[in-house]
């Protein structure tokens, strides 16, 4: 990898040829007849899985098949918030594992993922919020995750544009702050993992839709795709909103519902908010991108849909809340709005698991909060595929928890409303 390392030197060298001779970051191969492992889904999680399979588990014959282009699904549609302040021990372990990898990811990938630890603040708007947030702060600290509780004055001091007046509809009574949390550049995450995986021999096959999964009794034999049949003994499915569609091909049913989740960005303005503020109760998330756009996360619709758009009233509700909390934004114009399809588990926790079919693994159910987990998810899923058993950090996130009842119930506990 050192040969084509991105550096100041390579930047200067390529300046002499007007930056026209940069090599492609990844190849565009045709699928081979057979792979040791095939990852379905070329988003951040899928590419990270392939990268860690090659890097840590010495499996080189890997393909990532992607229906569209890499990073074009939820990886390119989220609001890029990264945090690990989850209530339950299992979740705290999972998300903080990811956060620790984020902290060194740009160096590891030799690709600037623009990870910015600008802090994430969660607001409390009623007495129950205050109690829940204090409880979560204590739980986080017991798990070694940085968390502090802020009163209204401290919230105002940390983010002065918030309206902390006591006479708004949902007054700010306090909040929590995780300083290690922040944001990253979503495209760069997919591209960085793709480039490194490609260098280690992973075939990234775009525009290749999976049409069927071939089974031989209780094990998998390969996948039917728009580019023909590809043989394999191990399939890792990381298809986000389309996980159920792939599961149906293998004759499997998952406890998932796929719903639209919307986000929107404003016109770019000068720096006005240097952190991420999330409000569970009124459902308003806002941060500012490096380009200056406000990045606003809305909620999910309550119906199943694969249409990658959502209902207008969801956006309206979010903007109502944003305007009450940040009156300064009242004349901002919104530039773009879009939807992604998120697969939500009944307990709002992900599944990183083997299945009843030998050689078929699922990494799904990330719902509204998968981006933050990208590196950890890839690492743990690679471990699960390579060893045919989960890592201790994802053992609780097995698919059998819906049979045993041992759920990881982050609904309402994870500092966001799902």
């Amino acid at each position, binding site marked *: 990898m050192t040969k084509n390392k991105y550096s100041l030197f390579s930047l200067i060298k390529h300046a002499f040829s007007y930056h026209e001779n940069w090599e492609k970051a990844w190849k565009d191969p045709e699928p081979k007849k057979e792979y040791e492992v095939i990852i379905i889904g070329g988003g951040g999680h899928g590419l990270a899985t392939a990268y860690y399979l090659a890097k840590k588990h010495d499996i080189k014959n890997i393909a990532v098949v992607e229906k569209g282009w890499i990073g074009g699904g939820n990886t390119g549609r989220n609001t890029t918030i990264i945090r690990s302040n989850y209530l339950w021990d299992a979740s705290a372990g999972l998300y903080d594992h990811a956060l620790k990898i984020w902290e060194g990811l740009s160096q590891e990938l030799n690709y600037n993922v623009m990870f910015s630890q600008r802090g994430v603040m969660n607001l409390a708007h009623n007495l129950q919020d205050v109690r829940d947030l204090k409880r979560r702060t204590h739980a986080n600290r017991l798990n070694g995750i940085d968390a502090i509780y802020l009163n209204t004055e401290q919230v105002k001091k940390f983010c002065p544009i918030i309206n902390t007046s006591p006479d708004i509809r949902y007054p700010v009574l306090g909040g929590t702050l995780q300083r290690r949390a922040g944001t990253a550049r979503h495209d760069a995450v997919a591209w960085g993992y793709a480039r490194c995986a490609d260098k280690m021999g992973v075939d990234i096959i775009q525009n290749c839709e999976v049409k069927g999964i071939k089974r031989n009794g209780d094990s998998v034999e390969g996948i039917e795709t728009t580019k023909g049949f590809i043989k394999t003994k191990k399939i890792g499915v990381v298809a986000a909103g389309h996980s159920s569609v792939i599961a149906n091909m293998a004759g499997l*049913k*998952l*406890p998932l519902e796929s719903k639209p989740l919307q986000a929107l960005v404003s016109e770019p303005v000068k720096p006005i908010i240097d952190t991420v503020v999330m409000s569970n109760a009124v459902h308003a998330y806002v941060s500012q991108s490096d380009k200056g756009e406000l990045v606003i996360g809305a909620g999910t619709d309550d119906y*199943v*849909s694969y249409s990658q758009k959502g209902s207008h009233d969801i956006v309206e509700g979010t903007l109502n809340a944003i305007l009450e909390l940040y009156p300064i934004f009242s004349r901002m114009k919104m530039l773009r709005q879009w939807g992604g399809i998120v697969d939500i588990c009944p307990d709002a926790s992900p599944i990183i698991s083997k299945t009843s079919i030998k050689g078929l693994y699922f990494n799904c159910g990330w719902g509204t909060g998968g981006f933050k987990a990208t590196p950890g998810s890839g690492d743990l899923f690679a471990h699960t595929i390579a060893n045919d058993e989960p890592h201790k950090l994802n053992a609780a996130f097995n698919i059998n928890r819906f049979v045993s009842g041992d759920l990881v119930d982050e609904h309402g506990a994870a500092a966001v409303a799902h």
Partner: protein
Amino acid sequence: MFIINCPYCGKREQSEFKAGGEAHIVRPKQPTELSDDQWAEYLFMRKNIKGIQFERWVHTHGCRKWFNVVRDTSNDVIKAVYKMGEKPPTK
């Protein structure tokens, strides 16, 4: 956003309604005799279809009655609406 033709009130905006998930999941007649697998199937496992899906909706901000909807989840086009207890349309 789309328009739903409530069988009791007529055409209204979708924001007046609440989605109730997959339809025709029958509550087990003998709950005490179910295995854990059967409970999981009943409680949690969903078809989550991309395409024609049969589902329940309730007109929360209207007549507050439940009914069934046949909808294409890939483009949100509603194919049919029918009352609770009625047989689902075959075409």
